């Protein structure tokens, strides 16, 4: 299929339906709305389910229902709406039903603004609602990646019967880039054996998150943890650039990671030994690769469009082996390559002088 000029939100929507999306439920919010609008047309044309819900609370619970019926289902929103969905995420995670949630992040806290931000890192990676679990979180840095990760998201959700989120900042949702869409997959005809389809000729199926006995609840938690352990082992994804001889590793995801790429290129032109690690999964965080790299770098610079959230995961992975510096913009401000370059130079200067090396 040829490349076409596509807006991020539209590309995600179209990729989702080509990946076999059967039911979408959502509520308008900028900078995500084109995603919902695109599906409001295409899903109806294809005779699939599209419903504009009365709130994000309702949309995620509609997704919970459709997911319990064993179909590929999705909702999308932006930060304030994602906050409202937390209850549903937790129930979904506790019921072993697969689904996909897209978060096109915007500036916060509060109503904030509609500019791109990465301020939801904590709320999507940490637990997404109450209880002990993590969703799988994919973080695209281009329209093409947004498309590819959307397809991947559905496959991972089904594979692990788990909640998968796509956390993209508003920049990814709003910008247009040439990208290639996947071919249209046929809709699945078979429903999983656990799905709520009516107890015809079989025992009844139950979808619940309720385990009244603490022993039972602990056993269920152990099951989730065992699954998360496998996901953590199998699904860490990242993009790496010029890390071979790097003294300084710049780490950023999504748009911040993409801008950091330009800054790393500029630094290399100046002869500075700088590389880039751009996590593509925020959970599981690419901790194994980062801890390997920590053995041979002198320090890290974390770049985020927030006050420093992913930096916690960087510190955990690096485990104090090297110093970790931070450069971030907040409130919908986007870092400029030059600003990151300055931060790179300052960090390197500090690292070299601490080691008694010439700059």
């Amino acid at each position, binding site marked *: 299929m040829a490349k076409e000029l596509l807006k991020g939100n539209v590309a995600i929507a179209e990729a989702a339906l080509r990946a076999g999306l*059967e*039911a979408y*439920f959502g509520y308008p919010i900028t900078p995500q709305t084109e995603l919902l609008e695109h599906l409001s047309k295409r899903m109806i044309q294809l005779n699939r*389910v599209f*419903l504009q*819900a*009365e*709130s994000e*609370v*309702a*949309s995620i*619970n*509609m*997704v*919970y*229902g*459709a*997911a*319990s*019926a064993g*179909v590929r*289902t999705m909702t999308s929103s932006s930060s304030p709406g994602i906050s409202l969905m937390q*209850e*549903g995420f937790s*129930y979904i995670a506790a*019921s072993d039903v697969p689904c996909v949630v897209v978060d096109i992040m915007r500036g916060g806290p509060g109503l904030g603004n509609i500019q791109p931000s990465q301020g939801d890192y904590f709320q999507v990676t940490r637990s997404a609602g109450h209880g002990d679990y993590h969703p799988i979180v994919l973080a695209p840095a281009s329209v093409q990646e947004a498309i590819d990760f959307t397809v991947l998201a559905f496959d991972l959700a089904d594979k692990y019967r788990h909640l998968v989120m796509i956390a993209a900042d508003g920049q990814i949702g709003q910008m247009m880039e040439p990208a290639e869409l996947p071919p249209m997959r046929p809709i699945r005809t078979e429903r999983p054996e656990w799905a*709520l*389809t*009516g*107890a*015809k*000729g079989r025992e*009844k*199926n*139950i*979808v*619940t*998150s*309720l385990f009244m006995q603490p022993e039972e609840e602990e056993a269920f938690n152990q099951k989730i943890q065992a699954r998360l352990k496998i996901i953590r082992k199998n699904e860490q994804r990242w993009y790496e650039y010029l890390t071979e001889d790097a003294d300084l590793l710049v780490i950023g995801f999504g748009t911040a990671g993409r801008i950091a790429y330009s800054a790393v290129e500029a630094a290399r032109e100046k002869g500075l030994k700088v590389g880039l690690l751009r996590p593509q999964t925020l959970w599981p965080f690419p901790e194994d690769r980062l801890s390997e790299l920590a053995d041979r770098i002198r320090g890290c610079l974390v770049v985020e469009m927030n006050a420093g959230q992913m930096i916690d995961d960087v510190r955990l992975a690096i485990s104090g082996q090297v110093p970790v510096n931070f450069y971030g913009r907040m409130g919908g401000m986007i870092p400029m390559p030059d600003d990151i370059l300055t931060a790179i130079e300052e960090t390197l200067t500090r690292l070299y002088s601490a080691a008694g090396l010439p700059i």
Partner: protein
Amino acid sequence: MLATLNAPISENSLQVVYEYPESLSPVVTHYCPGCTHGIAHRLLAEALDELGLREKTILVAPVGCSVFAYQYFETDGCEAAHGRAPAMATGLKRVQPDKTVVTYQGDGDLVSIGAAEILHAAARGENITTIFINNAIYGMTGGQMAPTTLPGQKTTSSPFGRNTTMTGNPIRMSELLANMDGSAYIVRRSLHDVKNIRKAKKAIITALKVQMAGLGFSMVELLSSCPTNWSIQPEKALEWIEDNMVPYFPLGDYKVRDEVNGL
């Protein structure tokens, strides 16, 4: 009279007049003695049996005393978040319109925390059936004030009696939802005596038929007892429904779309 009672019973004269419904799971429920949740379960199960719906029904249980309802029905079932049963039911029904989707909700669940979800399900004419248990109290959490608690009624969170100046007035949900164009069948019945229980069952059957015919949203509100948290004997609780709840929540048909009469 005596003679008939003492007459030997022949095998052929035995007739089954009361059976365990196929749609009801053969388990002991956790409901308190004298609670009418059990009656409501039985009525729903009988209705599902009579309409042959067991194998295509999905029951959405609420958060409340009936949180385990999915364990008590021999149908597929799930457990929604507090108040979200209509949203979850919407998801289930939209992707498989040929199935029968039923929500079973208490008054805290449906009228308070889930008011938006039920209102919009009705407004959309969501083709689901809701069994709404109105017992004027939060049973599961130990008897706090519900949005349906009567003026002056004492609960653990309105210990001086519900003061409507401070808390507002009870909400009559059937009347409210009947106003939605999407609702096809909305009635209020009571479980306080045999006559009314019979009427309640008829209404549940009609509501399910409305769904089978694809007419839109249907709801049967059932005035129900909570002897435990009302702190009265079960029989007195039934009288309390009749004396106090029925005057505030009048029984009757609030919405019966024309097509329903033909079912």
